[in-house]
């Protein structure tokens, strides 16, 4: 566990997920993460990872912050601290974005969905209270911020997630990647988006805490669905090339350094007007001193977070997350490195326990995304 998580643990005593007993009854090993007792694994990270890539995995991500913005012009307020196009985001459409500090550093990454009557945000569990405080401080009083702490959140991920969920709720078949809507099952009212953090097709499902166990039971009763822990969630997102806040991104990293320039929308590039715009727009023009990249690793030994990267005697960066990729049967990593060494194919050395391990800058995702997008003619 990293320092930043350790810090969280000191500040907030471990809370229990709404489904804590449900996880324990299914053999989960619970570990502290983001202020909660979280299921890290059930039968084992490797098996759970591979199951999700072939079938469908159910992840309890109720530690994440579900936040509603209502009142007067919440989109304008949000645009002051994120670089994405929110005003023109269509109803039931969602977008990945980042919360920015005045100097352009990333305070958190998040999903923003426009719904008929509000903006619905999903932010990281470890950051949610800081995010709320930051929004309260920067938003006009006319914007109302509500943390939905009576809602649980699940992710159902994998190539069979679509057929699995549609077998219970046929209408979800109409959703494409990054679309969302309101659905019902057995009288439970669900907010469902076609999105996730594994690179696979899948859904994120928001449900009242009182119904969370019933929903998890309905899903896990399907042959293709198993509960999957936080361990596999991490290895799946790493293979998908998706950054993890607090590790690959933090307040010292700008979206351009973090290789998230895609999240800076066209109009926002032209108009600016968001926190850190001066730095970020200049970085888009001029480039940055360092950049987030993917690394393939020679041999079998994992290169983990904190490992220093060298070209000869010169330290050129640090691994921000790394581990063994079960789908590939090999170690992979992400790193922040000097941009001069960021081109694909650049060979560096990672120092692990006094040993140098060759690594190569590699394209991400490491495992191709398989999102459910409309077929283009």
């Amino acid at each position, binding site marked *: 566990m990293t320092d930043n998580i350790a810090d969280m643990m000191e500040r907030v005593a471990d809370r229990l997920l709404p489904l804590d007993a449900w996880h324990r009854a299914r053999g989960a090993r619970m570990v502290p993460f983001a202020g909660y007792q979280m299921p*890290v694994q059930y039968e*084992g*990270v*490797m098996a759970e990872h591979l199951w999700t890539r072939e079938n469908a995995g159910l992840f309890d991500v109720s530690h994440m912050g579900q936040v509603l913005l209502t009142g007067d012009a919440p989109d304008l307020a949000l645009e002051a601290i994120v670089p994405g196009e929110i005003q023109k985001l269509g109803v039931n459409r969602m977008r990945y974005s980042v919360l920015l500090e005045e100097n352009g550093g990333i305070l958190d990454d998040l999903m923003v969905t426009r719904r008929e009557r509000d903006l619905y945000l999903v932010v990281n569990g470890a950051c949610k209270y800081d995010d709320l405080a930051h929004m309260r401080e920067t938003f006009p009083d006319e914007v109302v911020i509500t943390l939905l702490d009576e809602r649980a959140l699940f992710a159902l991920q994998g190539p069979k997630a679509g057929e699995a969920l549609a077998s219970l709720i046929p209408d979800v078949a109409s959703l494409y990647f990054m679309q969302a809507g309101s659905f019902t099952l057995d009288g439970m009212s669900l907010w469902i988006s076609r999105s996730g953090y594994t690179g696979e097709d899948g859904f994120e499902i928001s449900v009242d805490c009182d119904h969370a166990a019933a929903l998890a039971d309905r899903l896990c009763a399907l042959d293709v669905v198993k509960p999957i822990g936080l*361990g596999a969630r991490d*290895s799946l997102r790493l293979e998908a090339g998706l950054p993890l806040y607090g590790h690959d991104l933090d307040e010292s990293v700008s979206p351009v350094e973090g290789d998230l320039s895609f999240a800076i929308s066209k109009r926002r590039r032209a108009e600016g007007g968001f926190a850190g715009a001066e730095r970020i727009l200049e970085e888009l023009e001029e480039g940055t001193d360092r950049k987030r990249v993917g690394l393939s690793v020679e041999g*079998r*030994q994992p290169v983990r977070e904190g490992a220093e990267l060298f070209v000869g005697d010169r330290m050129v960066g640090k691994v921000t997350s790394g581990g*063994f990729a079960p789908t590939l049967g090999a170690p992979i990593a992400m790193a922040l490195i000097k941009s001069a060494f960021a081109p694909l194919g650049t060979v560096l050395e990672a120092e692990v*326990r006094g040993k140098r391990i060759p690594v190569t800058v590699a394209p991400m995702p490491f495992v191709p995304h398989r999102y459910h997008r409309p077929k283009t003619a």
Partner: protein
Amino acid sequence: MSRYFTEEHEWVEVEGKIATVGITEYAQQQLGDVVFVDVPAEGKQFDKGDEAAVVESVKAASDVYSPVSGTIVEGNEVLADEPGLVNSDPEGDGWFFKLQLTDQGELDALMDEAAYKKFVAGL
């Protein structure tokens, strides 16, 4: 032949002056899927408690300490290609290294199987 155990969840099988060292069933369960093992080369000398091997699971890297002092006579080379042996047969084919004991007396400080079982039950 007798088998000893440590609080770091290693086992030591002693035959004459040669000790075979591995990690216990409990340890492999805690580690989860092992993906890499680095075993020491022949001739390396360790004092009791020195870092002698590295075992990495999907989740984390862990050191394996030498439970006794001695000189390595063999590392389990099979683990380089089949690290999963540590999960499937930790107290057999998944052994880490063999060393020639420097001081047989060090064994007295280790636990026997009954004491280790009790130790694990109390965790």
